[in-house]
């Protein structure tokens, strides 16, 4: 039993999957190959906006090894549908958002540089790429709309989308908010941009399409965070193949950060080409294609106003945001700047009046969708930056101002003015711990010491809240979601007592194989190594909605708990029969079915064996020990916490060093703190990247200027301090694990903390992210 306890709930178990990853034994999409396999290279638009006049493939087709050149015209002729958007946002006036048709392969107009309009299939990657260059395409270049802030005053890029406006959306009470602002003793105003980011998963996107002409079965290996959703979309909307003839396998996936949630043109085209050519077709993106054609993140322009009364209590928050959706709506692109953003604007505070208005606009840039945090980093950035500035304007300690406005433990459940009901939390507990960890009281001395060395030191907080485990299905669907938000879990006990667990979530770096095994091992009292997790294959896992929004444990884990309870219930019936008693007298704990008040017991393994070799077995019970459950959460979970950053600025060069970064988060019950801390570290790194280094830049013609890692700066180890990470715990009140989700918090909370620290150091209200040394130098010399 010692083993089980060491790997029990809360134990920092090392990740089971890591040995395979670090020894190169992981199997990613590109590692799978088939006999007779051929390779695709995509034809991509060199222009941000152009009419596609003609495609002349004759020269390419004449090349040795070229099997086909397929275009968007061909795909449309084969009856393929458009790529759908999975969330229909309702506008202020009650009408649906205006959706621009998004063909998987463009056939008449291209709308961003890098948009695919065809593919070459050839016997090798090299031949395919060379042939792609020999395809002669005539375009008529059109003026591109690039800047989201100007999009509504620019030429319409999609027929029928007036002013490039996809939606004009609002949430909250506009007139009450305006009235409260007008009556406020003080109003703080802030203009912010939330910089556009490029996800950069370590593994680029890839797809391998296989068609079996005998059975009519299609198999698609692809880099997906949610293979069942991929299958659903491809079959129901794009009409690639009926769902029962389509198997989607997402094997090991090397990171996603949201960018692999979506259904992309490339995998759609690959499975189509495989059927058309009756050859397995593979495509693996080059890094440059990832930059151009993965969905980007963030990209908001915001004006915010915070009203306060004489005592520094928030009376109203009004937020106006223009969100760049890119050229087309990606699968969840519409929901990110609305339901995942506007709903979070209460933050940790009791602001009574909040109104948010979002203009979602189309531009000639790559589609924008969820990227680690998805809407919640943008919301946190607005709230935590403006609160900080308000404190400065009022001459108040920013900690004190936050405390004065925080929702208190006694206030839960707390209904915000922006739709959410927070179930639980203790925000000051995290705040206090973070202040202690960073030695807030000692900051003035550190600042003085830095000044002696010619450096400007600043400190900044961010008290964030987020919403994970998007839920419940019924509510989300009523708000426009096209899918449910539950999860499935299956626990298959093998005759020898080992356990195979199936989940509809997908691990692409999150360590599910360990965390979920811990949950199962702890509940069944079996060894963690006797539990195997299966995920990422629609042919093996019943159904699921994948991994995004930090939902896997709180939703997917809860489904597994549901299945575990059914397994135990059945086990108790079997044990009762074998111990010749009634089921009420059987307790299950630590892997033993015990007859209460006796020393008679059966091990979990003995009962499992009996279920499959039913010699001594209840008459009215089916053999076997395998159970499934679906879990639909009744509410979101609300991770929250305080991040505090300390920076030092070299005044001569403007170089900023992030010298301290503390994160104290409340993720509810932790199953594996080692994995949780790892997730936080990664998130903090991405948050620091957003604040200080990362920026997708398009020029005025819509050409991506930051198309490689030589120009797009993602943080490296030497850009980051040693993080100080800790947690507080208020268990989630409505799921059986008490868990809230930890995958995104690092990226949600930290940018505001870093920018508050930096602006504190410089004595300015804002510098746009990323705060490059030149911007800082200009602020210092201005």
């Amino acid at each position, binding site marked *: 039993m010692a083993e089980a306890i060491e790997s029990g709930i809360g134990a920092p178990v090392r990740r089971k999957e890591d040995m395979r990853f670090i020894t190169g034994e992981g199997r990613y999409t590109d590692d799978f190959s088939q006999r007779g396999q051929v390779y695709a290279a995509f034809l991509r638009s060199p222009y941000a906006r152009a009419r596609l006049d003609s495609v002349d493939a004759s020269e390419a087709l004449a090349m040795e090894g070229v099997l086909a050149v397929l275009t968007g015209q061909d795909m449309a002729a084969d009856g393929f549908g458009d790529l759908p958007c999975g969330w229909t946002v309702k506008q202020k006036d009650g009408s649906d958002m205006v959706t621009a048709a998004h063909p998987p392969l463009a056939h008449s107009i291209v709308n961003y540089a890098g948009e695919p309009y065809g593919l070459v299939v050839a016997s090798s990657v*090299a031949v395919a*790429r*060379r042939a792609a*260059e020999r395809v002669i395409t005539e375009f008529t270049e059109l003026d591109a709309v690039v800047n989201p802030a100007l999009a509504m005053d620019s030429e319409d890029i999609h027929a029928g989308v007036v002013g490039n406006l996809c939606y004009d959306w609002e949430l909250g009470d506009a007139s009450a908010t305006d009235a409260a602002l007008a009556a406020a003793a003080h109003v703080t105003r802030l203009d912010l941009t939330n910089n556009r980011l490029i996800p950069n998963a370590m593994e680029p996107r890839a797809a391998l399409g296989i068609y079996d002409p005998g059975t009519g079965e299609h198999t698609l290996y692809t880099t997906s965070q949610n293979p069942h959703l991929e299958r659903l979309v491809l079959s129901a909307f794009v009409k690639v193949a009926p769902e029962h003839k389509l198997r989607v396998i997402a094997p090991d996936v090397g990171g996603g950060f949201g960018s692999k949630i979506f259904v992309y043109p490339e995998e759609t085209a690959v499975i189509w080409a495989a059927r058309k050519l009756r050859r397995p077709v593979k495509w693996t993106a080059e890094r*440059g294609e990832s930059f151009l054609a993965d969905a980007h993140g963030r990209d908001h322009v915001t004006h915010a106003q915070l009203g306060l009364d004489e005592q520094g209590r928030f009376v109203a928050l009004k937020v106006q945001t223009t969100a760049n959706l890119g050229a087309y709506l990606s699968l969840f692109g519409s929901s990110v700047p609305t339901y995942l953003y506007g709903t979070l604007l209460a933050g940790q505070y009791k602001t009574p009046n909040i109104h948010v208005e979002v203009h979602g606009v189309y531009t000639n840039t790559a589609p924008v969708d969820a990227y680690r945090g998805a809407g919640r980093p943008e919301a946190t950035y607005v709230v935590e930056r403006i609160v900080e500035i308000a404190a400065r304007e009022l001459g108040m300690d920013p900690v004190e101002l936050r405390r004065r406005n925080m929702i208190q433990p006694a206030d839960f459940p707390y209904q915000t003015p922006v739709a959410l009901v927070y179930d639980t939390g203790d925000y000051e507990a995290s705040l206090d711990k973070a202040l202690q960890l960073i030695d807030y009281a000692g900051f003035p001395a550190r600042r003085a010491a830095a000044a002696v060395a010619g450096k400007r030191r600043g400190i900044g907080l961010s008290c964030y809240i987020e919403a994970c485990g998007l839920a419940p299905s019924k509510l989300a669907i009523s708000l426009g979601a096209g899918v449910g938000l539950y999860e499935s879990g299956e626990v298959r006990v093998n005759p020898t007592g080992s356990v195979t667990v199936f989940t509809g979530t997908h691990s692409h770096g999150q360590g599910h194989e360990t965390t979920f095994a811990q949950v199962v091992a702890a509940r069944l009292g079996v060894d963690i190594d006797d539990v195997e997790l299966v995920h990422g294959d629609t042919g093996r896992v019943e159904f699921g909605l994948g991994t995004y929004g930090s939902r896997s444990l709180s939703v997917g884990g809860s489904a597994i708990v549901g299945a575990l309870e059914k397994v135990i219930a059945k086990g108790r019936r079997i044990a009762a029969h074998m111990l010749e008693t009634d089921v009420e007298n059987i307790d299950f704990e630590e892997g033993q079915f015990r007859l209460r008040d006796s020393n008679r017991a059966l091990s979990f393994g003995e009962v499992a064996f009996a279920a499959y070799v039913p010699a001594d077995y209840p008459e009215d019970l089916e053999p076997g020990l395998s159970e499934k459950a679906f879990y639909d959460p009744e509410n979101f979970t609300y991770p929250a916490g305080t991040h505090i950053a300390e920076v030092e600025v070299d005044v*001569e*060069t403007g170089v900023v060093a992030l010298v301290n970064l503390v994160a104290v988060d409340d993720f509810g019950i932790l199953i594996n703190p080692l994995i949780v801390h790892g997730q936080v570290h990664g998130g903090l790194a991405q948050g620091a990247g957003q604040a200080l*280094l990362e920026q997708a*830049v398009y020029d005025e013609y819509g050409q991506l*200027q*930051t198309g490689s*890692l*030589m*120009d*797009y*700066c993602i943080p490296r180890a030497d*850009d980051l301090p040693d993080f100080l990470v800790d947690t507080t715990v208020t268990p989630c009140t409505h799921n059986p694990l008490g868990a809230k989700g930890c995958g995104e918090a690092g990226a949600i909370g930290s940018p505001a903390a870093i920018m508050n620290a930096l602006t504190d150091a410089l004595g300015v209200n804002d510098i746009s992210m990323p705060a*490059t*040394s*030149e911007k800082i*130098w*200009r602020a210092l010399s201005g």
Partner: protein
Amino acid sequence: MYQFRYHKPATLEEAVDCYQSAEDGIYLAGGQTLLPTMKQRLAAPSDVIDLSAIDRLTGIEVTSDEVRVGAFTRHDEVARHEGIRRRLPVLAFLAAQIGDGQVRNRGTIGGSVANSDPAADYPAAVIGLGATINTNARQIAADDYFQDLFETALEPGEIITRIDFPVPSRAAYRKFPNPASRYAVVGVLVADFDGRIRVGITGAGPCAFRGTALEVALQGNLNSAAIEGVEVPDVGFNNDLHASAEYRAHLVKVMARRAIADLVG
């Protein structure tokens, strides 16, 4: 990458012959610039001529007044070389700032100087120390070597064999790295040859150049106060995503000041 013919000559003469008979030949040294360019299909040479087997391009010689570095010497070797660290520590220090470990293990001094990337580090040393570029055909003085963006005095097919660096009394290099690529946004090398000052600047312009105004101000007056009043005009400076010309001009002065501070303590 496109198809090409690969050659690995054993002598300089063979290499040059090979180049001359190729339709569109190119020399390959460490490949840290050339191979990424080929992989991105921005270069499509017909023949790639690998210089790695040519003995004459290797070897480091340290004398009392000169450090001679064979063109095929990897950055990492320069960074770690005992003799260089003793006689010309600034060169070892500069080499250690280039790229990352992988790049330093492959990239060569000859490749860097032949390529003349505006943001490369070695050119600051070539200019700042007044090095001599030896080729298979001749010797080229540093001041005559760098001509424009990726343009040098090398004739087509000419091969750098060795670079000779005079040893100054003292010298220091300061680099302001691009946070993404880690190349130099600006790099300044200040060298003192018994009171004669040379300043080599990289990153700021289309190619490395001498900071003559800074040199004049520092002549006989090697301290950071001496350059306070010197204007660094940003005319012709690089102006890109990563830094404006104005910021680069500012950084030239800051890096120069810091290099001087390294020298005079």
